[in-house]
């Protein structure tokens, strides 16, 4: 228990650092931008904005997808505001006239208010679908091989998937979740979680790709599901009354007034930590790469090019590692949390 709390604090510190470094980078960048805009010519200002724009373009979600100005895909807009509005693209929405776009935000033309819910197929939703298609293709082709030659040793893609799936099942899920039945029921969830996050992470490293996991809404969505899995499996496994009893932390009733809020809070901090960790890690790498490339435009010299390219290449390779590590961390922490809440004798600790 003490070990785990240590791990937790370390993680929290890590998140805090990541966040602060992230903020620092953005702050210094904006300061730099201001400096250039104030003291330098307009050309420089434009160049500074180029990097900033590309960064925004890369990190934020859009209603269209643009591949290096080579091709451009308009994505459908789905809005709900008292009734459902469906448009094949942003342009057709503007043409229809009920909604308009101001500062990259969709608002009603008459009230200037944003719609209640924007369920558009954005670029990140498209990348999620791409990830899903890629993964399903990989899994279905290997499943076919399993059916065709069930007894031969796995090769290639099939072998890679098998190694990862077995690793998740045997090294992440089973050691952390003590109940074998629960581990077997939940292992498909963890496999799906790991591969979904991994492929979304990796998409951000492909030129023209976006990593959906670099968006808070995506990581929050995954964490909400993780929240339901953690608490749902606890209620399902140890029973609702036992789950309620866990909220007292096994402490004497005199300090329940302190324990219960803490336990309820920790129930939400776990998925919140997952959300921020994945988002910060995926965003930080992209921001660092863009900042390093931005140095060339800021310092206005070719001498910096080898340094910029070298370091950004290094960060890029690091990002490749981080893509795997963060998928692994999100998966194993969810498994640890499930294991903690479903442990048979957790009250005795």
């Amino acid at each position, binding site marked *: 228990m003490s070990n785990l709390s240590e791990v937790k604090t370390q993680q929290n510190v890590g998140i805090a650092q990541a966040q602060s470094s992230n903020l620092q980078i953005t702050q210094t960048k904006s300061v730099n931008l201001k400096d250039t805009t104030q003291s330098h010519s307009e050309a420089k200002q434009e160049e500074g904005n180029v990097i900033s724009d590309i960064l925004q373009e890369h990190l*934020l979600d859009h209603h269209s997808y643009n591949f290096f100005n080579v091709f451009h895909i308009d994505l459908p807009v789905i809005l709900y505001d008292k009734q459902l509005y469906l448009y094949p693209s942003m342009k057709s929405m503007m043409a229809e006239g009920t909604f308009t776009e101001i500062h990259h935000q969709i608002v009603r033309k008459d009230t200037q208010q944003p719609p209640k819910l924007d369920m558009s197929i954005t670029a990140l939703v498209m990348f999620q679908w791409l990830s899903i298609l890629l993964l399903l293709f990989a899994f*279905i082709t290997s499943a076919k091989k399993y*059916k065709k030659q069930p*007894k031969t040793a796995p090769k290639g893609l099939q072998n890679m998937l098998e190694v990862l799936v077995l690793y998740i099942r045997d090294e992440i899920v089973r050691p952390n979740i003590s109940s074998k039945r629960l581990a077997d029921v939940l292992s498909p969830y963890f496999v799906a979680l790991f*591969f*979904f996050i991994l492929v979304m992470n990796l998409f951000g490293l492909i030129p023209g790709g976006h990593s959906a996991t670099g968006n808070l*809404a995506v990581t929050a969505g995954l964490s909400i*599901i993780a929240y339901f899995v953690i608490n749902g499996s606890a209620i399902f496994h140890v029973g609702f009354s036992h789950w309620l009893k866990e909220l007292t932390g096994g402490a004497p009733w005199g300090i329940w007034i302190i324990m219960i809020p803490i336990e309820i809070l920790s129930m939400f901090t776990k998925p919140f930590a997952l959300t921020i960790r994945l988002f910060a890690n995926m965003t930080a790498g992209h921001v660092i790469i863009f900042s390093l490339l931005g140095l060339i435009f800021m310092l206005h010299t070719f001498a910096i090019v080898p340094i910029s390219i070298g370091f950004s290449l290094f960060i890029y390779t690091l990002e490749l590692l981080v893509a795997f590590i963060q998928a692994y961390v999100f998966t194993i922490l969810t498994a640890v949390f499930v294991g903690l809440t479903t442990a048979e004798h957790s009250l005795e600790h």
Partner: protein
Amino acid sequence: MEKLLSVDPGLLIWTMINFLIFLFLLLKFGFKPMMNALKAREDGIQNSIKSAEAATENAQKLLQEAQNKLNEASKEVLTIIQKGREQSNAIINEAKEEAEKLRQEKMENAVKEITLAQEAAFKQIKYEIAGLVVDATEKIINEKLEKEKDYELINKYIENLSKN
């Protein structure tokens, strides 16, 4: 940049929908076939190990049997050789004995024959000598002695002579 830290509820809902769809499809088309195949392979490997163990045991048994048979056979061979040797020795001994006997017999026969021949020769010689003596004495003392009387006398002496 504040947009970076905002949560878009639409994207959040889409993420959850997408993930759940992916989970369902993966479970149905990817995970279950893989797990079934892995289970089948595990069972297959387990079975092959078991059958290999059984085969090894069987082979061990057969080897033991063969070893035993070989041992028995070599024992038998040894006894046969032993017996053969004994038999051959016996035969050789018998042959030797027989040969000895034969030799002995032949020797005896020869001795007998020799003695018989000797005796016959002696008899012959006695007669010859007696004849010669008779002739000689006849010639010497022809006139003095009567033939018949003398023969008897001489024969008596010769008989006595031969007995002595």
